[in-house]
């Protein structure tokens, strides 16, 4: 396949965008951080404690990952009383990553619907091969 001349599209010049994309990919290179991001996308307003309960790592380790994701601009923090709640913010993502995150989340939602609709019968414990 031939690759199109980038000059025609013109918009990819800013090195700031490259840097930001680098930070985003760096943050996403870790499987735990990807799992966290997916969990937050699915359960908006999650707290570090809630997120840690679903993972085999400490709350402290979760916080470290959440900071990395926040620094990359992938998460928004809001304080609610003593807890900090996290929200997924796909806006700063490069177009490609944003598309992957958004479309991936859409399919996850659809699969959850299907699992409820067709999967909740006899075969307990037989989930999707992940």
């Amino acid at each position: 396949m031939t690759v199109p001349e980038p000059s025609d599209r013109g918009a990819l010049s800013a090195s700031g965008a490259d840097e930001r994309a680098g930070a985003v990919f760096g943050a996403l290179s870790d499987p735990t951080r990807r799992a966290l991001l997916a969990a937050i996308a699915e359960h908006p307003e999650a707290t570090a404690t809630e997120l840690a309960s679903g993972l085999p790592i400490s709350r402290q380790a979760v916080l470290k990952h959440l900071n990395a994701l926040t620094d990359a601009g992938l998460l928004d923090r809001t304080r609610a009383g003593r807890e900090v709640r996290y929200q997924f913010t796909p806006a700063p993502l490069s177009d490609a990553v944003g598309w992957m995150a958004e479309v991936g989340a859409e399919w996850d939602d659809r699969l959850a619907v299907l699992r409820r609709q067709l999967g909740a019968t006899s075969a307990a414990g037989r989930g999707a091969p992940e």
Partner: protein
Amino acid sequence: MTERIERELWLPATRDAVWDAVTSDGWLAEYVRIDLRPGGDAHFDSGGSVRSGWVEDVSVPERLIFWWAVDEEPASRVELKIEERGDGTRLRIVETRPLEVLDLVGVPLPGAGGSTYGPALVAA
């Protein structure tokens, strides 16, 4: 670079049941109209978000490949594969958004002529 999403799900259901579920209203969108033949038009309406596209290939109840796009956004290609696995069915989903050069041509696909130009693009 082609952006690609892949998902797989095993369901304790027949292939026909899975096919019905994934092509019925309420799954791909709230309101789904697909002309199930190569080149057929497809329309997906979820109230706030409307996508249109066309069918690249279809084989009931095991394979459906279609393209869809929201307004001016680049079109993406969705492949649904439904296979018998054990005493159930495996659904495999791949959604890809192709090279920009294809995107440029892909944008008008949902409109007039889309059915004509679409399959040729995939072969390119």
